[in-house]
């Protein structure tokens, strides 16, 4: 196929869109709705994943030791944990003194004399509270890491706090499942509408196609305008919602970060629009063109016997 023929057929494809205006608008609108919903859910899922990651980094496992365990044994436990680089992202030793300092700062704030009273009676009321804070590589590895640490000699207790991240994880899965279901339904409708649009175009141009075949047009030449028409519909159907999602997303994060400052403080905020669009834009365009191509090819296969 020569370049000039591609231009000629692209022109024919654009004319086809004009000729079947109503069907073209319906196809683009459905495609746009599909890609819009995809864009919104994609942004939400991406942000949830981002938040979960942030939360995960703040959720550690606390490893408590047997009473009066020698420092050398504590070091041995520490080395055994550090060795599991496949599971462990970070480990921090918190001594009994640090624990007491943290405790008293949190619970005796403004009543320092009371805290001193405790210290006078006993050197450190939390003498056996030295511990490791261990952070797994990912939240899914937490159970495995806990089992491993519990098996180490000298470990009295392992505390884990999974609630926040598991709640977010299950919410994320729910959103992903619902969005996939809605997107799938819309995808099927889009394919059907594109296919109908192209079929109408083929029917309108039946006589022209017949003449083309009789005067020696190749099969690919006859098919090309309809494929290009489909691709064009797909691109328009993907581009329009991307522009809308861009502005909606931008306004939404500004509003949410302004309204719920906790998001900024504890979760390092939400993903900026450019970070989301770096992935969302190419995925949406590919999705739009892909759907359109499938719709075009179905119509061509069924109605364009060349």
């Amino acid at each position, binding site marked *: 196929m020569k370049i*000039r023929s591609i231009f000629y057929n692209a022109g024919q494809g654009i004319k086809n869109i004009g000729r079947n205006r109503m069907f073209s608008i319906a196809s683009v609108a459905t495609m746009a709705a599909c890609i819009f919903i995809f864009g919104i859910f994609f942004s939400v899922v991406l942000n949830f994943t981002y938040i979960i990651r942030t939360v995960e980094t703040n959720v550690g496992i606390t490893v408590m030791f047997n009473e009066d365990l020698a420092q050398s044994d504590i070091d041995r436990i520490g080395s055994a944990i550090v060795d599991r680089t496949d599971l462990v992202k970070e480990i921090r030793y918190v001594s009994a003194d640090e624990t007491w300092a943290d405790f008293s700062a949190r619970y005796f704030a403004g009543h320092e004399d009371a805290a001193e009273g405790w210290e006078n009676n006993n050197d450190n009321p939390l003498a056996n509270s030295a511990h490791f804070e261990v952070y797994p590589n990912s939240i899914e590895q937490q159970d495995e890491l806990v089992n491993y640490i519990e098996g180490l000699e000298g470990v009295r207790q392992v505390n884990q706090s999974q609630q926040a991240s598991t709640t977010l994880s299950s919410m994320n899965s729910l959103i992903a499942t619902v969005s996939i279901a809605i997107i799938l339904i819309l995808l099927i409708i889009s394919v059907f509408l594109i296919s109908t649009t192209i079929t109408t175009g083929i029917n309108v141009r039946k006589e022209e196609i017949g003449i083309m075949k009789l*005067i020696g047009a190749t099969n690919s030449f006859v098919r090309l305008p309809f494929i290009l028409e489909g691709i064009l519909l797909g691109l328009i159907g993907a581009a329009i919602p991307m522009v809308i999602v861009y502005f909606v997303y931008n306004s939404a994060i500004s509003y949410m970060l302004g309204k719920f400052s906790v998001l900024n403080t504890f979760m390092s905020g939400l993903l900026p629009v450019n970070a989301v669009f770096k992935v969302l834009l190419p995925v949406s365009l590919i999705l739009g063109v892909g759907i359109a191509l499938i719709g075009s090819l179905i119509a061509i296969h069924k109605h364009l016997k060349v």
Partner: protein
Amino acid sequence: MLTGRSAQDELQVLRERKCNTEEYMIQFDNVTKIYEKGAQPAIDNVSLTIHDGEFVFIVGDSGSGKTTMIELMLKELTPTKGTITINDQNLNKLRSSQIAKYRRGVGVVFQDFRLLKDRNVYDNVAFAQRVIEKPGRVIKRRVPEVLTLVGLATKYRSFPKELSGGEQQRVALARALVNRPKVLLADEPTGNLDPKNSEEIMELLDEINTRGTTVVVVTHNREIVNQMQKRVIRLRKGVIVSDVEEGGYVED
């Protein structure tokens, strides 16, 4: 008025394609076409040879198999039995990917003209070149030439609905000729025309033939067949019942 090479130049180009009556252009070898199993053949064991540069009428009543012959020659149909060879190509052996290229060597016009109503005369003719991917400079040169040849150089901007039936058939002829086919097939080319326009179209076909193109005209127009005094092949129920050089239209 379109500019370009004159009709005389076009004439010269076509004359260079020497009429060689020794070689055949179209050959049917025991060809049978049956549309449905058990049905009567549309074409029944037909054998014929049409030489390069010949002008041939195929005549017969409705249902005699005339249109089937045209469709077989255009490779729109495949024979049930027998072999068709046109322009040195065995049509039975053409793969689907080769059909397009084969058809570029065969021009065709129909009773109903089959012009694109949304395009003007120039674009209708240029269309035949565009679909076989000819460069723009070739299209700009050839379309005016061929429109001059059919006498429509001044009407290149007109749309089909603005033209008479005879003029529309001239546009269809120009479209069929623009790719310089070796064979021109005309299926009832005067079927929708009055006697005067029919005569003019036949004169044009004759002129095209004198320039070296093999012309096959399927018709049941007795007047033009009698007037032209060309070879006449008469079909009846799919069988050739007569084949006469410089013949006339013989009724059954």
